[in-house]
């Protein structure tokens, strides 16, 4: 259903009519669940006056629409009511919609349909299977068939994409000068525009766009260049990896993408490269790394990780040895490293290093030298191009290139020539050379470096057109704003980080009738009637030779087979000597004052996710903060400036200053201040507006990543920060167990269960259990958001989090070991419900609202709960969550549309907790029963498990000795949390193996 083409499809082109059956057959095995709950809630909804009022209040656009189309919109909202699936066909003007009523083999009422599509992150495709219930996408899973490593799993951002789809704050109407306009009106404008541009060959036309990987869009942009040769395309990604291309340009003479092959790397030396941190490649890297780790956990030949970083990262948390040094020290360290490996000069610079630095460099160099061909020297994408180039040379010299690191033509647009930079555009605008500016997706008014004074310069442009998902800061500075469709509601294509072309197909009709970016560009080209679908077909018919069958296959798979980028390992050009490291940074920061570095926020990235409450409330992996960004500083610096966590401070960089709360981050380089970007937005929406402070305000185009000579001043004000973990150490407990490689081999699982007075309850058939391997957990939070999406977990807001009332069913605990300045270890522990066989909570409940099931589940029955909170008080793991207020019901109807129809929405005064995704267990049980067979191992996959990029979480039937979870439990590293309480949890852990380098065996 949902994959129907938009309304204005010409009858001749009707792909899904033919595609659908294939989809149906392909997805049948995946299909599960029931839409019933939705069907009802929305039925009531659509009837209620509240909903009508909501529509009026929330959808001025909808009001603008003609009466009929508005009714259609309402009907769309009420989709689940009409199981025929009419809704998904939306306001099809003609009878063509009706045949879809009787296609039950596609849409079985109450059964989920899965579509292979993709969401976008920094322009890169994140392949997903979208679970839809009667035309409503509710949950995204990875696409296991997709060739990219880890494509079967997702990161937190991909999980939240479905929330973005329903975000009520997305822009809902084309506007001209802030007033609602029509598509026709806009097209009218473009006609005149085109005439002028044809005369001056587009000399005064500038297009600003963020990362583009879409083959179709690139084709369109080429057409645009062809049509208007003088027109200039600018390309800006506030975080991005632009310098990588500069680096390869220096090293190999052309811009290339750098692809790691961590599954081959026995040693990784990273200089500020947050390999496992959030970003387009996180899932891929995590999958590669964990693949090798899983293979070698037994023999102990684990990848060793040496990290030098100025601010703690998830990569540093995994490392055996970490060196905390100012970001600007990295080139020097690199030079020494390279030098001691015989690449380039610079071994002379050894003197310039501190004791600690020398030691670390020696270790790192030694390791790399000892592992030629299976080592990897990774350099942060933000470090200077020269340094990048040198790193490539090192990898090449050590024979790592081609094995642990390979190169390919840029998957996105190459960002190398100065002319296409944002700076050039800003200057052009200042010089008044720009008549027309088209901003596609990007939000430069918010993200552009402060020194460009972008907003003011932009206002000089006489025609400003913005197309985006939100009416954001940039939109508010433009004459025209065109709402773009969300990836989940539009036809498009994009490449994944590995270059694989992935297909985006609509899972629902555009909620706000937006336009696809393709349609916008097409309009500029004068193709007024082209639909995204046409343009897509145009691109791919060319590649697939118009083969309908092949095209259908692509839609089924969600990607184009064998379209992965061709990788190579070119030889560096010129001699190493040519590389100059014109960076002189004194060993200790004193002379240069403080260093300010800029990093994307791990949860809202560069600000594009600011309005997604799930991500706002997602505890940041290391700080466990929510709803805010901070100035991260070292404990030493804090002492020096008499600052405590939460104190407001003023950061001054190059004459610009910004105020924000400081946070003491263990492992932060002494004199480095980390500014997290992505906050302090003014037009993000109701969720994101006003949260945190705007780090871009002190960022400069010259030094976008690290600036010396920063100053920090205490303002004396205290700001309220909401963190979900107040205590950072284990206080002598062994909640997260660690063992050296040798111990791990020698170790034996926990001794058998302690004796008990209670009878032995038998779980002969199914005994559900979960096993979490802490040796694989990188603390990425994907499980947390996946759980939130699957289980309708409400967002409670900053104040409630501050009060200690966050609702996440699975939390990732973070513990430090060692000193505050440089913790020896940062440990993560995902903590869902333990499903204890002798559960203290159940005994406390006076009304049988939490009881034990015959399959060992600790059942929580919301509708029986009276809210005494005894269970939660008795719970030794504190995994139970309580609805102190009416959290869920207050969501807007649109957000409610995202909810999983198979999970009850909890009311005020009710306890809730992890259920092991019982709705999935039930679905599997019912299917199995109908087919008269037992539930197969791996048939039930919990949401957290399916999201986990390293497969740290395994769920299954421990009564079956061959099940994955049973085998996991045989691990010598197996242990039970708080075993001494004899609660007999079903959720168990495997101890983390410490990097050899850190347990004295190196």
């Amino acid at each position: 259903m949902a994959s129907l083409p938009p309304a204005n499809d010409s009858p001749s082109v009707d792909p899904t009519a033919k595609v659908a059956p294939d989809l149906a057959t392909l997805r049948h095995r995946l299909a599960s669940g029931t839409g019933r709950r939705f069907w009802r809630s929305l039925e009531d909804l659509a009837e209620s006056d509240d909903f009508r009022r909501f529509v009026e209040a929330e959808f001025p656009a909808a009001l603008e629409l003609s009466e009929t189309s508005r009714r259609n919109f309402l009907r769309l909202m009420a989709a689940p009511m009409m199981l025929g699936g009419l809704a998904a066909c939306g306001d099809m003007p003609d009878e063509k919609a009706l045949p879809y009523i009787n296609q039950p083999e596609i849409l079985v009422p109450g059964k989920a349909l899965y579509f292979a599509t993709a969401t976008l992150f920094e322009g890169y495709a994140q392949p997903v299977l979208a679970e839809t219930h009667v035309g409503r996408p509710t949950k995204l899973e990875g696409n296991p068939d997709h060739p990219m490593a880890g494509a079967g799993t997702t990161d937190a951002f991909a999980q939240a994409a479905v929330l973005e789809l329903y975000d009520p704050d997305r822009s809902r109407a084309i506007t001209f000068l802030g007033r609602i306009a029509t598509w026709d009106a806009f097209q009218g404008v473009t006609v005149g525009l085109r005439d002028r541009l044809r005369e001056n060959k587009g000399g005064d036309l500038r297009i600003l766009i963020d990362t583009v990987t879409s083959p179709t869009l690139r084709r369109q942009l080429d057409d645009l260049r062809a049509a208007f040769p003088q027109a200039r395309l600018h390309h800006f990604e506030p975080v991005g990896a632009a310098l990588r291309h500069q680096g390869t340009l220096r090293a190999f003479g052309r811009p290339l993408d750098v692809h790691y092959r961590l599954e081959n790397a026995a040693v990784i030396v990273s200089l500020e490269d947050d390999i496992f941190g959030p970003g387009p490649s996180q899932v891929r890297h995590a999958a590669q790394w964990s693949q090798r780790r899983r293979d070698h956990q037994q023999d102990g030949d684990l990848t060793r990780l040496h990290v030098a970083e100025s601010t703690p990262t998830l990569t540093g948390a995994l490392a055996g040895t970490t060196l905390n040094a100012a970001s600007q020290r990295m080139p020097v360290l690199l030079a020494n490293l390279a030098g001691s490996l015989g690449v380039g000069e610079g071994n002379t610079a050894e003197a310039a290093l501190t004791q600690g630095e020398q030691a670390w460099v020696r270790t790192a160099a030694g390791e790399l030298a000892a592992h030629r061909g299976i080592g990897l020297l990774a350099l942060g994408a933000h470090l200077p191009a020269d340094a990048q180039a040198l790193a490539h040379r090192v990898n090449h010299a050590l024979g790592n290139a081609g094995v642990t690191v390979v190169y390919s033509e840029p998957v996105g647009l190459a960002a190398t020539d100065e002319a296409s930079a944002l700076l050039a555009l800003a200057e052009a605008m200042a010089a008044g050379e720009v008549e027309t500016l088209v901003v596609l997706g990007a939000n430069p008014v918010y993200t552009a470096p402060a020194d460009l004074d972008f907003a003011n310069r932009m206002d000089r442009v006489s025609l400003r057109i913005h197309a985006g998902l939100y009416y954001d800061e940039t939109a508010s500075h433009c004459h025209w704003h065109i709402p773009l469709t969300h990836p989940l509601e539009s036809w498009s294509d994009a490449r994944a980080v590995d270059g694989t072309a992935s297909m985006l197909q609509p899972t629902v009709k555009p909620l706000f009738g937006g336009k696809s970016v393709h349609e916008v560009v097409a309009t500029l080209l004068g193709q007024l009637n082209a639909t995204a679908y046409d343009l897509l077909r145009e691109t791919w018919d060319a590649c697939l030779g118009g083969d309908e069958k092949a095209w259908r296959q692509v839609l089924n798979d969600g990607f184009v087979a064998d379209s992965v980028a061709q990788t190579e390992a070119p030889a560096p050009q010129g001699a190493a000597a040519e590389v100059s490291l014109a960076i002189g940074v004194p060993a200790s920061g004193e002379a240069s004052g403080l260093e300010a570095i800029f990093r994307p926020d791990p949860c809202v990235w560069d600000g594009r996710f600011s309005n997604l409450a799930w991500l706002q409330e997602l505890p940041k992996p290391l700080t466990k903060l929510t709803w805010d960004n901070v100035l991260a500083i070292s404990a030493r610096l804090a002492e020096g400036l008499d600052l405590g966590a939460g104190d407001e401070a003023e950061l001054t960089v190059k004459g610009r200053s910004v105020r924000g709360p400081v946070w003491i981050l263990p492992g932060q380089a002494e004199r480095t201040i980390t500014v997290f970007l992505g906050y302090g937005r003014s037009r993000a929406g109701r969720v994101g507006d006003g949260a945190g402070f705007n780090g871009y305000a002190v960022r400069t185009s010259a030094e976008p990543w690290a600036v010396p000579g920063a100053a920090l001043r205490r303002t004396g004000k205290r700001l309220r920060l909401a963190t979900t973990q107040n205590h950072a150490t284990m206080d002598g407990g062994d909640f997260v167990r660690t063992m050296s490689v040798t111990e791990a081999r020698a170790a034996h699982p926990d001794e058998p269960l302690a004796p008990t007075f209670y009878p032995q309850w038998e779980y002969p058939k199914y005994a559900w259990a979960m096993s979490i391997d802490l040796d694989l957990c990188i603390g990425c939070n994907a499980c947390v958001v996946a759980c939130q999406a699957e289980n309708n977990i409400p967002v409670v807001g900053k104040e409630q989090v501050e009060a200690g009332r966050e609702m996440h069913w699975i939390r990732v605990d973070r513990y430090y070991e060692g000193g505050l300045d440089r913790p020896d270890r940062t440990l993560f522990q995902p903590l869902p419900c333990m499903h204890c066989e002798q559960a203290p909570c159940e005994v406390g409940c006076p009304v049988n609202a939490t009881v034990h099931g015959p399959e060992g589940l600790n059942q929580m029955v919301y509708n029986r709960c009276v809210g005494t909170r005894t269970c939660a008080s008795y719970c030794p793991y504190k995994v139970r969550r309580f609805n102190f207020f009416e959290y869920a019901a207050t969501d807007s109807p649109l957000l409610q549309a995202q909810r999983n129809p198979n999970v009850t929405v909890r009311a005020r005064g009710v306890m809730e907790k992890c259920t092991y995704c019982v709705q999935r267990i039930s679905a599997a049980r019912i299917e199995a029963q109908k087919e008269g067979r037992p539930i197969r191992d791996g048939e039930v996959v919990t949401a957290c498990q399916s999201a986990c990029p390293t497969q740290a979480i395994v769920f299954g039937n421990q009564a079956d000795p061959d099940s994955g979870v049973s085998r996991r439990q045989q691990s010598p590293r197996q242990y039970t949390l708080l075993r001494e309480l004899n609660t007999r949890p079903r959720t168990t852990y495997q101890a983390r193996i410490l990097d050899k380098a850190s347990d004295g065996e190196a």
Partner: protein
Amino acid sequence: MPQADNPRALLLEFATGDDLLAAAGRVREAGYRQLDAFSPFPLEGLAETIGDKATRIPWFALIGGAAGALGGLFMQWYANVVSYPLNIGGRPLASWPAFILPAFELAVLGAVLAAVMGMLIENGLPRLHHPVFEAERFGCASDDRFFLWIASSDPHLSYPAGRAVLDDLGAVAIHEVPA
């Protein structure tokens, strides 16, 4: 001594409890049977003296208590083992130690209710209207005076001998309770 036509009973008023006790003893020896005595507070042995038989309240209480205890235990056993057996924290279905407390409470309730009910029934309370209230001095019975009641129907009243006994009981006054 005022003589009303056939009063319902004679009410002898005494100043102290001891006088009443003594008098009650004497009258009883004299063969009077239809007696009752009233005092502002309990007097040890008064009831026995005027020949009230022992109360059955302890039995009521015992039965009530037993019913409460057994009923409580049965209810909990039935609920957990028969009606809706559920695995609660791996505990046995019939967790007797846990059932004790509610059962005990119910036992106490049963016993108390039974005892009180028994007392009220045996005493024939509540009874708002009673002939003895006719006697105008009777108001003091709840304050500082002690009374001996002799029903007119008691045969001994008609014998002069019996009548004589009353005169030197040390009664402060003798009242007649009108019919």
